[in-house]
């Protein structure tokens, strides 16, 4: 494969969000992802593109999937991996966030993959390190690589997102996946509808590029893709919905409701699924479900992102790919 490594693919040093990323940049990442997806199918799915580079996964908040996905991506690119994991609480033991970041940077990390339960933390981290920073999910703010892999997965199925009608269903208020996807989907020309009870919608979203519905059954038959978000059980205890049972009844995708979804529509979920709440086991394996494709594509997208931020390196030879 050949890549023009003289041209910076992303003018930015960091990937902090879909916000601030242009349509052209998103499309370039998706195009590059195609090439990395091919590597994943080789008998030995490994290239030396990031040999000698160090990727630090800095997860202040627990994560299994995203961390595994990033670390697999880094390994396939032959990068070295540093792993930092701590509950956010370790910071309150006295070390400031800045201290933590400076220490990790001093181990020689070239990129920090940061997840934190609070919005904006990756941005703050980027101000205290020379390394690149990738936002792997910050509180209720953004999860840009999830959005990129979702776009890639939809594009894989449909060729283009232009004109698609995509419904995002569930706890949008607390969802970084929803925020990133609203920006990414609409940037690529899709029409986005947020579907949730009012208590699970963010306040003051009149100027977002979305339609809003409080009743899934009203809009489901118009959707080309139905993106279900994870419904966390504590939302009920905080009084945002009367009960999980009622939420499931009105917003869960079960076989019955699935019949209202157009035959060629797609079903997505960022995982981990709360089976029996927002989605039933039967629907998860419905032919329209592309949930497992999302997982597979996650690694390829993250390879593309890591390569773009780190790959333009003097020791890198483009014919090594």
């Amino acid at each position, binding site marked *: 494969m050949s890549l023009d490594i003289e041209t910076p693919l992303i003018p930015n040093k960091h990937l902090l969000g879909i916000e601030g990323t242009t349509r052209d940049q998103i499309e370039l990442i998706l195009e590059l992802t195609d090439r990395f997806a091919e590597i994943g199918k080789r008998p030995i799915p490994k290239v030396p593109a990031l040999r000698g580079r160090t990727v630090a996964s800095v997860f202040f908040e627990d994560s299994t999937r995203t961390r595994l996905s990033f670390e697999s991506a880094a390994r396939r690119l032959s990068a070295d991996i540093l792993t930092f994991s701590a509950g956010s609480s370790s*910071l309150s033991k006295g070390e400031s966030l800045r*201290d933590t970041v400076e220490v990790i940077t001093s181990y020689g990390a070239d990129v920090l993959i940061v997840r934190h*339960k609070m919005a904006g933390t990756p941005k*703050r981290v980027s101000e205290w390190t020379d390394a690149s920073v990738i936002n792997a999910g910050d509180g*209720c703010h953004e999860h840009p690589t999830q959005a990129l892999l979702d776009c890639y997965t939809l594009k894989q199925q449909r060729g283009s997102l232009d004109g698609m009608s995509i419904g995002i269903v569930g706890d949008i208020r607390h969802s970084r996946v929803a925020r990133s996807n609203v920006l990414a989907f609409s940037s690529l020309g899709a029409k986005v509808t947020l579907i949730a009870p009012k208590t699970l919608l963010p*306040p003051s979203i009149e100027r977002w590029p979305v339609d809003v519905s409080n009743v899934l059954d009203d809009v489901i038959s118009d959707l080309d893709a139905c993106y279900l978000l994870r419904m966390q059980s504590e939302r009920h205890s905080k009084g945002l919905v009367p009960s999980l049972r009622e939420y499931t009844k009105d917003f869960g995708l079960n076989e019955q409701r699935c019949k209202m979804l157009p035959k060629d529509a797609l079903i997505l979920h960022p995982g981990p699924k709360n089976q029996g709440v927002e989605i039933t086991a039967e629907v998860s394996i419905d032919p329209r479900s592309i949930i497992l494709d999302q997982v597979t594509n996650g690694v390829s997208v993250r390879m593309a992102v890591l390569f773009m931020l780190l790959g333009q390196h003097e020791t890198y030879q483009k014919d090594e790919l």
Partner: protein
Amino acid sequence: MGIVLKGGKILDRKGERSLDVSIGSDGKILETGKKLNGDVEVDCSGCIITSGLVDLHVHLREPGDEEAETIETGARSGAMGGFTALVAMPNTEPTTDCLAVVEQVKTLGKKSSCEVIPSAAMTVGREGKEMVQMGELVDNGIGIFTDDGKGLQDPQLMRRLMEYSTGLESRLGRPIVLAQHCEVHELAEGGHMHEGEWSSFLGIPGQPAEAEELMVMRDIALSKMTGARIHFQHLSTLGSVQMVREAKAAGLPVTAEATTHHFTLTDSACSCYDPVFKVHPPLRTESDVKAVKEGLADGTIDAIATDHAPHSQHSKEMPFDQAPPGMLGLETALSLSLEHSGLDLPGVLNLLSWQPAKIAGIDNRHGMTVEKDNPANLCVVDLDETWTVSGKEMLSRSSNTPYEGWNLRGRVRHTINNGLLVVSDGESTK
């Protein structure tokens, strides 16, 4: 013969006049007149001489968080900003809710660059459960009670405090001030900035304007019920300003303050995720800022306060939710008010000195006219000097100013506290 302020122009409630001011060794103004002489002649040419500023709302952090500020450093910072009197908030550690802590604050204050007026908590430990020993505190000169940082949630207890305090006024010899930080806990809980378009966009949980407004509404109703005086701290929303305006029109004994940051900054500042912009009540929207300025202009808001809230650097180098709320204010308040409040010069002095002195019950020594026999609590301001804000250069022990790098006009050249030159030519002498 003591200090003579030479070549300046006096500006007070009586107007302007170009006179020198001679200050006696007893700390009082000896005389004002043309071409006075003294042992120490202080150049005030091109400056106005006015009463020292009075801040109804300052966190001096001592006792308890001396790493962020002490009474000495806070008062020095105040003097640098032209203040001669600071009302110290009681959210210290231990809480200023009893005579012992009040006395400590007073004692340390006496050695400092400003007059430090301790306020006391309304409830023990600021926990909103039991009244403090109000009578005992009143008998020792405490006239301002507040659980600042927390609004008193229990309406019944608030009512009782109002009733009880009015009965103590004859013992104090002046009105007692109950100062409320209006915030309904259940609505504000978990919110780290103003709830609105920006919070939704940034993914930072917000607290709505209504969290403040519901308590303003409640306390106006309780003031009407009990006849008690209530002072609203740091009003920040359009709705709050409107309610206070109506309460005043109805003749209720309410007063209010607004902070400099609530008329100079909006919630959009949080978009950089730097907790230096995190404060309670939070920075609001453009329309709230406009309403606060209208409140300053039409007399709804009686005083400009700073809510000076020093925090150590490491505590602000944290994720937005974990960083404590609050920002510095003492050294920027006057310049910001001159430039951004929409008030003219006498208007600014009225809200930064004359009226807050009355609310604090210290108008027998602060916020007075610059005349013979009045205590010499004065500040001398060069209205034309421009300067650039730098947290590191501030005299506060902390540097968490949200105005870093701002170019401001108008700066304090000298401050005289009780006859002593505590700031001379822009330098602290203490």
